[in-house]
């Protein structure tokens, strides 16, 4: 045992551990998901879709049709003309800020939470 420890050390370490545990719990708990899908296409106004029901939407683009599947709280690129499947590979967009991109169709899909914020391009 280390010499010179005080009772306050135990309190401090306990509080710090509680803080770290709480931060994990708060951050990774399933919280408020995205509520809106924003479809941005080159040369067109952005289109907004609520993420409140299940449906599929089709977006015509320069290279073909991008099919977007919407479910409550999430959306994904179901089919897109890109040969490498990059748009589909983005998977379900489930957290505010997640995005999928189809370059052939000049299309960006992004889900947003209750408040509009910065996007992942900031990385």
């Amino acid at each position: 045992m280390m010499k010179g420890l005080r009772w306050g050390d135990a309190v401090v370490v306990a509080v710090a551990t509680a803080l770290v545990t709480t931060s994990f719990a708060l951050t990774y708990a399933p919280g408020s998901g995205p509520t809106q899908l924003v479809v941005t296409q080159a040369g067109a106004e952005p289109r907004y879709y609520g993420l409140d029901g299940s449906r599929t939407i089709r977006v015509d683009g320069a290279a073909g049709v991008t099919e977007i599947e919407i479910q409550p709280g999430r959306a994904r690129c179901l089919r897109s003309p890109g040969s490498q499947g990059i748009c589909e590979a983005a998977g379900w967009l489930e957290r505010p800020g997640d995005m999928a991109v189809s370059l052939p169709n000049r299309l960006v899909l992004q889900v947003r939470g209750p408040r509009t914020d910065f996007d992942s391009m900031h990385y």
Partner: protein
Amino acid sequence: MTPEPGPADRRIAALAALAIGLQVIEAAIPSPVPGIKPGLANVITLVALVALGWRAALAVSLLRVVGASLLLGTLLSPGFWLSLTGALAALLVLAPLARLYPRHLSALGLAVPAAIAHTLGQFLLAWALIVPHPQLPLLLPPLLLAALITGVVTGILTTSVLADPRIQRHVRNSPTTQSG
């Protein structure tokens, strides 16, 4: 004529030189995760705080941040501001806690809150100004966990440094000189 540096100035300069050396060495060690490093220079800050008081700790911290950034070529870069913010946040927490040393807290009890404050301060600056991304908070819990661990490690190191008789002579209210 510049005034002659007093003994306190020389101590601060010596501690700052040690801290700069530690920070430069640490910068050369590749970190598995960006944003996580041991923070060994904080040992020196704690020694300065305990031995010479919080003004000396502030001086040592500022000298370290500026001096190390000059050597590493990061002066006024984002890394410099993060370093500065972390150091100031840690001192902000340390200043009131230092009064509890050594009666109620050992160096370990100082190092852990300092490390957490360091990380939190850096994170808030990063989130507010440098990378204002809505998902950045996802990085915070692992960083805080790392701060907890590195805080314990630097706390143990500080305790053993302070236990050295050559340091002991300079420590105010050290456990050995206090009869309480």
